[in-house]
C-alpha cells in the first residue's frame, strides 16, 4: 500500500484562498513551539508582536515603512516569477537604484530645478534597477545563462559597490567617520504621510493596481501569461518570447528600483549602511504568499512588515532575539510551498503497480 499525489480535475479555488491562511497558522504553531523551547509564553509573545506592529499609530506607521519596499519588490519579483524568470536579485536592484538616486540627490540637485529633483531621482533610480535586472535577462535570452545565479551574484556586486561609495568617495566629510553620505538637500526628500511613512506608499499601491490591470486587462499581460506558461506555445502563436521577457524583467527591475529610491529619499535621506533589511529576499516570500496576484501583495507585505516590526518589539519588551520575526517569515514559506501543492493535487491511497503506471503515464 502506498500513497501518491493525484492531479485534481480542476484547480481548487478554495485551496488558493485557504492555503495562505493555513500556512500562517502552521507557522504560528511552529514558532510557538520554538518560543516554548526558549522558555517564553507563545501567547504573550505573539500578543506583544501584534501590539508592536499594529497596536499604536507609531507602530502602524513603522509597519508601513517596512511594507512599502516589500510591496514594490514583491510586485517586481511577482512579475518576473509569472514568466518563470527567477529574479532573486531584487535586493541588488533596490540597492543600485538607491545609489543612483543618491547620485542625483547629491550631485545634480544644486543645478536641477527643485521640483524636478524627485522625479529625476525616481526615473534614474528605476532605470538603474531596470539595468541591473536587464543584464541577467539579456544573458538568459541570448546565451541561456541561468538567471538565478546571475541575479543572486549581482546582489553582491551592487551591495559592495554601494559600500565602496559611502565608505569611500561619497562619504560625508563632516560625518565624524560615520559610513554614509551627507544628508540630501530638502528637495530630494520624499514627502512623508505620517511618522516615517512616505509617499512611496501611494506609488506602491498604484503600482499594484496598474500591474493587476496590465496582467489581466491588456494584450501584453495576456502574452506574458502565455510565455510564462509555455514559451514554445507562445512562439507558435507569434509572440516574441525574448523581447517580452526582456521588457517584463526591465519593469520588474524598475519596480524593485523604486523601492530603493523610496528607502534613500523617504527614510534615511542619505545613502548609508543598512539601506535594505533584506527586503529583496523577503519579497520572494511576499510574492509567493500572494500567489503572484498583484492585488494580494499589499496585504501580504503589510503582514510581513508587521512581523519585522513586531520582531523588534519582542526583542525590546520580552528580551527575545528580534530575529524571531524573520524566523516566522521563513517558517511561513515552508507550509506555503507545501500547501500550494494541494491546489492542484490531492492525496490518494494506491497499490504498488498502479503507482508505477501512474508515474509512467499512458503510452
Amino acid at each position: 500500500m502506498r500513497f501518491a499525489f493525484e492531479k485534481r480535475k480542476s484547480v481548487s479555488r478554495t485551496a488558493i484562498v485557504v492555503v495562505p491562511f493555513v500556512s500562517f497558522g502552521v507557522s504560528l504553531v511552529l514558532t510557538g513551539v520554538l518560543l516554548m523551547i526558549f522558555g517564553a509564553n507563545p501567547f504573550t509573545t505573539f500578543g506583544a508582536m501584534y501590539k508592536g506592529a499594529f497596536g499604536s499609530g507609531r507602530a502602524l506607521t513603522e509597519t508601513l515603512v517596512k511594507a512599502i519596499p516589500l510591496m514594490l519588490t514583491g510586485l517586481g519579483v511577482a512579475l518576473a516569477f509569472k514568466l518563470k524568470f527567477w529574479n532573486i536579485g531584487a535586493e541588488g536592484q533596490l540597492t543600485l537604484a538607491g545609489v543612483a538616486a543618491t547620485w542625483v540627490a547629491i550631485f545634480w540637485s544644486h543645478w536641477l530645478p527643485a521640483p524636478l529633483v524627485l522625479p529625476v531621482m525616481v526615473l534614474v533610480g528605476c532605470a538603474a534597477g531596470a539595468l541591473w535586472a536587464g543584464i541577467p535577462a539579456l544573458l538568459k535570452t541570448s546565451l541561456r545563462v541561468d538567471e538565478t545565479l546571475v541575479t543572486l551574484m549581482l546582489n553582491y556586486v551592487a551591495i559592495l559597490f554601494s559600500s565602496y561609495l559611502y565608505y569611500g568617495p561619497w562619504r560625508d566629510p563632516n560625518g565624524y567617520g560615520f559610513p554614509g553620505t551627507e544628508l540630501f538637500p530638502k528637495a530630494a526628500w520624499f514627502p512623508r504621510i505620517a511618522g516615517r511613512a512616505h509617499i512611496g506608499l501611494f506609488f506602491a499601491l498604484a503600482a499594484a493596481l496598474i500591474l493587476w490591470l496590465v496582467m489581466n486587462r491588456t494584450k501584453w499581460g495576456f502574452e506574458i501569461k502565455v510565455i510564462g506558461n509555455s514559451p514554445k506555445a507562445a512562439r507558435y502563436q507569434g509572440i516574441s518570447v525574448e523581447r517580452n521577457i526582456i521588457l517584463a524583467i526591465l519593469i520588474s527591475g524598475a519596480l524593485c528600483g523604486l523601492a530603493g529610491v523610496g528607502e534613500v529619499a523617504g527614510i534615511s535621506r542619505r545613502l548609508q549602511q543598512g539601506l535594505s533589511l533584506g527586503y529583496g529576499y523577503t519579497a520572494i516570500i511576499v510574492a509567493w504568499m500572494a500567489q503572484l496576484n498583484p492585488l494580494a501583495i499589499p496585504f501580504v507585505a503589510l503582514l510581513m512588515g508587521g512581523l519585522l516590526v513586531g520582531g523588534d518589539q519582542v526583542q525590546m519588551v520580552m528580551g527575545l532575539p528580534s530575529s524571531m520575526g524573520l524566523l516566522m517569515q521563513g517558517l511561513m514559506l515552508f507550509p506555503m510551498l507545501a500547501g500550494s501543492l494541494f491546489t492542484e493535487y490531492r492525496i490518494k491511497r494506491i497499490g504498488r503497480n498502479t503507482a508505477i503506471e501512474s508515474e509512467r503515464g499512458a503510452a
Partner: protein
Amino acid sequence: MEETANGAPLVEMRGIRKSFPGVQASDGIDLRLGKGEVLALLGENGAGKSTLMNILCGLYRQDAGEVYVRGVKADIRSPRDATDLGIGMVHQNFMLVDTMSVAENVVLGMPSLGMIPDMNQIKRSILELGDRYNMKVDPDAFIWQLSVGEQQRVEILKQLYRKAEILVLDEPTAVLTPQEAKELDAVVKRMQSEGKSAVFITHKMDEVMAFSDRVMVLRKGKVVIEKTTRDTNPKELARMMVGREVLFHIEKQPFEPGAVVLELRDVCAEDERGLPALRNLSFKLRAGEILGIAGVAGNGQRELSEVITGLRSVTSGGISINCVDSTNKTPLQIIMSGVSHIPQDRIAVGAVGDMSVANNLAMKDYRAAPISVGALLLPRRILEFARKMIGIFNIATPSPETRVKFLSGGNIQKTILAREIESCGSLLVAVYPSRGLDIGATEGVRKELVAQRDAGKAVLLVSEDIDELLSVADTIAVMFDGRAIGVMPAQGADPEDIGLLMAGIDPTAKEATV
C-alpha cells in the same frame, strides 16, 4: 528457431492484453523469441509495439497474459526484475545522465556496485566490451560530449555490461545516420553470433529485411502476420502494416483547384542536430486543394510544417504564400498573412495546458477587435467568443474557464482546430491532426479539413495514416529522408505503392527489389 536447454523458447509471451484509457494497446498478443534470434516488430505508430516491449521490460504490467523466460513463468514487476532475467531495453529517448561520465552511466543503479566502486576495473571492462563488439567509446567522456549515435552505444554497452541476453531496441535507427545504422547492424550481428537475442521495434521495411530473422507485424494491438523474414517481402509487409480497408467515406465537392497559395522552391532546412532535414523540397499547393504529405514520422514532416509557419529557418531555397515571399519571416508575420497551423505537439505547443479553454481559443484572435481594443483586452469578449466557438465546434468542456489540460485529447484538439480554423485566412497546415483521437473525433477533424478545402482554402495535411490521406486529400506526396518522392493524385492511388514509397522503395522498380 533455436531453443534453450530445456526445450522452451528463450522468451514466450502468451495472450498479452493491456489497455490504456480509450485504447486497447495490446489485444491478446503471443510472441516467441528464440536463442540467437533477431525478431523485428513492425507496425505503425500506436500499433502497440512499444507497449508490448515495455511489458517485457517491467515498465508496464499486463492486464492479462503470461510471460515465460527460458521456459519458466516470469513475474516482471520492474526494470530490475527484467535485468535479473537478462532482458535489457534501449529506449528511443536515451535514459542517460548528461553530466556524468560514460563509465558512471554504465554502472549507474547496479545493486552489485557496493559503497566504493572500483572505477578503474569498471572502465577496463567497458573498454573490453567495446573491443569485443567493435564499439569505440571513451569511458571517461561525459554524455553531453557525445553524439546521438555514441550515446546509443553507451546505452547498448550498459545493457551488455549487465549481461543482457535479450536486447530490446526501440526504433534504434530513427536517430542514427546511415553510417551509424550500419555499425549498429554489425553490433547486433556480433551479439547474435554469441547466442544473444534481440527484438527490434521499427516501422521501416528495409531495416526489417536487413536486420531480422523473423518479423511480426502488429496493427491496433493485434498480430496480423508473423513470418520468417526471407519468406516475405517489403510489399507484403507494407500491406499488412497499413491495412487495406478505408474506414471513412467523406463527402467532398469536386476538385477544382484555384490559384497557387503555397509554393516551395528547393527548400533546405536542418534539424536540431544540424543534420539536413529537408533536401531541395519543391511543391505547389493551390486554393481548394488538400495536399496530403505521407511518410513515416521523422522524414522531415515536422520541419516542413515549421519552415512554412516561420518556426524554423530555411537554409536555402524559398517559400511564398499567395505569391508573396515568406522565406524566413517571423511566425507573427506568417500568421498575419493568413496561415493557420495545427502543430504536431498539441499539448506543449498547440495549447497552453494551464490556461483556460477560453484563453486558448482566443490565443490568436486576441490581437484584434472584438476581443481587444488597442492595447486593452476585454475578458468578457473572450468568454463570449469562447462560448460561440465551443458551440460551433462541439467542444466538451465543463465551462469555458476550465483549464485545457483537464480536457480529453480529442477536445484539446478540437479547441486548437476551432482556433486555427477561425483565424485561418488562406492556408491551413495540419500536422497529424487525428493522431491519438478516437473514431468520432477523427471523423470530425477530417470533415472540418474537407470543409475548409470546399470553402476555397489550401490545406497541407501531414499524416501517417494512408486511409486518412486517401479519403481526405486531393494530392498525395510521400516524404522520405527530407525529399518529396512520388507525388500523385489521391484518386486511384494504390495504398501499397504509398506504403513502399514510405519505406523509401520505388514501386515502379518493384520487380528488382522483390
